[in-house]
Structures are given as structure tokens and as C-alpha cells.
């Protein structure tokens, strides 16, 4: 078991660090280890590396380097965007608009602000594919609305949201608009002007950079109350000594996925649709979750009726295939996924979902390997399910 190479199909959870990223980072551990705030040559070297990374990320987001804030992860970026804008603008109002399918980094943050600090939050519904209707955003806006936060692409079902349209609405009302683009990097455009966003979250480890480093884009003129105060790093928006190696890694990873984006997206769409088509034709009683076309190139999410997603996941794991289960029971809570429930999926069906997310190293052979073993795994579990009558 230990000798066998894992067939990794969980790229929405995290990616491996690309060798080019490792190479770019290595000097910043033991050779160029300076603190970017120090005035001596080692410090200047570190400072230069951080500023080069900032310029590179700014180039990809089509913004000024000054609008890039490096953080420790996507969750921190989401928290900084939401809390930072909300607290600073509380005198103007206390209403925030979001969707009902956000990542917990957004939804749990907003729930806390609602419960403990008296903010009012509107959770917009989604359609059966997980799409937010921009007209619903327009309708939800009130005089007291101070922030809109809607994710770019959903982490579970891969549905891509109409961010540009929502951004246009937000802008016409003068309301800051944040998007969690953690799953979107490398798959769709991150041009903040095309997207009409004021704040945008990225996380390094979703694009072949390491864990522990993230980005928050903050449009010039949007003020934030920093969550973390101290030495005034990141232009007073996020204090704390810069993770130089991580920041260099993030920028290198982002440049990498941006360079191969068009070609790689086309390739992944081919693999994705081969996998979806294969599963739907090989296995009865299964349903594609999320939008058939308007979804991330690497996302496959399928519900297998009469069985539990966790069982399929464990079965795949025994075959050396790493996947993810849509049923939250496997991750410690007994509730089915809030995303699937918001899409109107029956709780029983929602429990039978698995997510397979492709990445750069996956090939057609990998897809065929899944198609070879998955039907048998589902069949075996159904044979022992009292809900399945054949």
C-alpha cells in the first residue's frame, strides 16, 4: 500500500507544491533569510523579493501592487475583508449580503457577526445548479448595506458565479464587493476590473504554492480596519513579519497557473467531461451536482443514490485514489452539505456525493482508472444498503 503512488483527485482541497515553486522558495530559507523590514542588505533582499512578488500578483490581477495584501491563508483574507470593511463602516450601516453556498471562512465569520455583534446578514438563495441570480443581489440591497461578499467559484460543486454582473450592481450602489476566488485561480480570469470587485481572496496552496500564504486584493480607496495590528506591515493593513519564502512561492505558483491557464483549462475540461460522462453512463441512479457547463474545469461532483459518500471515498482510497466526500458526516458533523441543501438536493441524495477534482499531473489514464474501479465500489455498497432495491 505504502509503495503505491496515490492517484490524487482532490486538488480543490490542496495541491502539491510545484518543483519550480520549491526552487524559487528555497533561497529564502537559509540564504536570503532577512526580515523584509530590516535596513541591511539581507533585509533589502527579502524586501525586494516580497515587492517583486507583489508586482507579479498585481500584474495577474490587473491592479497596482499597492492593492495586494499578503496574508497567512484564504481564511485570513476572507476574515480581513469582511471584518475589516464591516467594522470600519458600521456607522453607515450594518447590513451585509452574501450567498447561501459560501465557504465556511465567509459564512461562519458572518454568522458570528450576526449572532454576537448585531450585524444583519442576507443569505441569497441559489438555483438548482448553485448559481446566484444577480437580480436577487439588487433586490437585497438596502440603505444600510455596507458589504457584499459572494464567492467566485464554489469549492464543492464548482459552479462559477456571475461575479462581473454582481460587481456592476454593487458598484452602481457604491457598496464594496468582496469575492472569495480561492477555487478560481488558474481556471478563470482574475482581472479585478473585468470582475468589478473591490476585494478578492486567493490562497497559495490551491495553485501549486505552499500552505500558509494567501492574498487579499484591496481596491484603492477601500478602507479596512486591520484585524492584526503591530508593526504596520503590508501598508498598515496586515501587521506581521512577511512570510518571504511563502510569498515568493505564491507569486511563482500564480504565474505558473496563469501562464498555462487557457491550454490547461481546455485539457481539464476534456478530462472532466470524460469522467462525468463515463460515470453517468456506467452507474445507474447517479446525478451530477452543480452546473453541467458553467463549472470549474477540474470539478466533478456526483451523487450516488442509496449509498454514503464516505463509503465510496474509503473504497477509492483502498484503490489508491484520493477523493473527497460531499457528505459532511465524514468530516465530523452529521449535517449534509449546506451547499447541496441550498441547491435543493434531498438530504439523502446529498449524503451520497463524492467530489473528484483534477489537477495538472492528472491524465486520461487516471480518469480511466477511476472509471474502472468506481462502478464496482458503488455496486458493492449498494448491495449492502437497505435502501437499494436493485
Amino acid at each position, binding site marked *: 500500500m505504502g509503495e503505491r503512488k496515490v492517484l490524487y483527485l482532490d486538488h480543490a482541497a490542496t495541491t502539491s507544491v510545484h518543483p519550480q515553486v520549491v526552487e524559487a522558495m528555497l533561497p529564502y530559507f537559509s540564504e536570503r533569510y532577512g526580515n523584509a523590514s530590516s535596513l541591511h542588505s539581507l533585509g533589502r533582499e527579502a524586501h525586494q523579493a516580497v515587492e517583486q512578488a507583489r508586482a507579479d500578483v498585481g500584474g495577474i490581477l490587473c491592479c497596482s501592487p499597492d492593492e495586494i495584501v499578503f496574508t497567512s491563508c484564504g481564511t485570513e483574507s476572507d476574515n480581513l475583508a469582511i471584518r475589516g470593511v464591516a467594522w470600519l463602516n458600521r456607522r453607515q450601516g450594518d447590513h451585509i449580503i452574501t450567498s447561501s453556498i459560501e465557504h465556511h471562512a465567509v459564512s461562519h465569520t458572518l454568522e458570528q457577526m450576526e449572532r454576537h455583534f448585531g450585524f444583519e446578514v442576507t443569505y441569497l438563495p441559489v438555483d438548482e445548479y448553485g448559481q446566484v441570480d444577480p437580480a436577487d443581489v439588487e433586490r437585497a440591497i438596502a440603505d444600510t448595506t455596507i458589504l457584499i461578499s459572494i464567492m467566485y467559484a464554489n469549492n464543492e460543486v464548482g459552479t462559477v458565479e456571475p461575479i462581473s454582473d454582481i460587481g456592476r450592481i454593487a458598484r452602481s450602489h457604491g457598496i464594496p464587493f468582496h469575492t472569495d476566488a480561492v477555487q478560481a485561480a488558474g481556471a478563470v480570469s482574475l482581472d479585478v476590473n473585468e470582475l468589478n470587485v473591490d476585494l478578492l481572496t486567493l490562497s497559495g496552496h490551491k495553485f501549486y504554492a505552499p500552505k500558509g500564504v494567501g492574498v487579499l486584493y484591496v481596491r484603492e480607496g477601500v478602507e479596512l480596519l486591520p484585524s492584526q495590528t503591530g508593526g504596520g506591515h503590508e501598508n498598515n493593513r496586515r501587521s506581521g513579519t512577511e512570510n518571504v519564502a511563502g510569498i515568493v512561492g505564491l507569486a511563482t505558483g500564480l504565474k505558473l497557473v496563469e501562464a498555462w491557464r487557457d491550454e490547461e483549462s481546455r485539457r481539464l475540461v476534456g478530462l472532466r467531461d470524460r469522467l462525468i460522462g463515463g460515470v453517468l453512463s456506467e452507474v445507474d441512479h447517479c446525478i451530477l451536482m452543480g452546473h453541467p457547463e458553467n463549472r470549474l474545469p477540474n470539478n466533478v461532483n456526483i451523487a450516488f443514490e*442509496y*449509498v*454514503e459518500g*464516505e*463509503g465510496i471515498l*474509503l*473504497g477509492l482510497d*483502498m484503490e489508491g485514489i484520493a477523493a473527497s466526500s460531499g*457528505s459532511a*458526516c*465524514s468530516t*465530523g*458533523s*452529521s449535517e*449534509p452539505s449546506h451547499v447541496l441543501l441550498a441547491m435543493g438536493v434531498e*438530504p*439523502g441524495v446529498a*449524503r451520497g456525493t463524492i467530489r473528484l477534482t483534477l489537477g495538472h499531473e492528472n491524465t486520461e489514464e487516471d480518469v480511466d482508472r477511476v472509471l474502472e474501479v468506481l462502478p464496482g465500489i458503488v455496486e458493492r455498497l449498494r*448491495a*449492502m*444498503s*437497505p*435502501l437499494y432495491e436493485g
Partner: protein
Amino acid sequence: MYSELVMQHFSNPHNVGVIEDADGVGKVGNPMCGDVMEMFIKVKDGRIDDVKFRTFGCGAAIATSSIATEMIKGKPLDEAVKLSNKAVADALGGLPAQKMHCSNLAADAVRAAIEDYWDKQKKPAQEARQDDE
């Protein structure tokens, strides 16, 4: 997250299936997480002669069902009915804390099957004969 023994019982569960002419059937569900488990028993001389199960649930639910059938097979009913969720979990080398509700299900299903058998024994003889026909 799961012990080696849980994975063994999940990947190669014992006593899966249905006993068509079962002497007792227990069907239990966990409304919290939606797990469903069916337990079928054949009784001979006051002992569990044969047992089979079907389970809809996570890996732990399947593993606990499997090991529970092993633990009661051949046992006197009085002893089998006392099977506890803790004993099932212990026999598997423990379960993750959030999975402990799954092991409740296996012991509950065993108890339900035995009680079903006892209920049928108490039925009037005539009704029992009709059941046989």
C-alpha cells in the same frame, strides 16, 4: 482516522445480506445522520444461529454492523441482547469521537431483532401458524 480493524470490516464486512425466513428482524435508523440498518436473525435452541445485516451509512456504520454480527453469532439471546455500543466500538479498537453514534446503531439493531423474535414468540399460536403458511 479509522483503526486498521475498522477498515478491515469496512472493506470485507462479515454477514452481509438478508435472511428471507428470519426469526427476528430489527430495523433502526438514526434520524440525526440518516443511517439505516437492518439486522436479520435465525434462532436455534435459544441461541443466535445465523445473522445477516444491511446498512446505509458511513464506513463506521458498516464496520460496526459487521463486527456486531460476529459478536452475537452463536451467543444465547439473553447475552446477545446485552450487547452495548461501547463493546462494539471497543471491539473495533475504538472509533473517532464524532462516529460514536454509528456504533449505537449496531447494538440497537441487534436488540431490535431479538425483541422482534421475542414478540413473535408471544403471539397466539394460531397467528403464528398463519404466518407459517
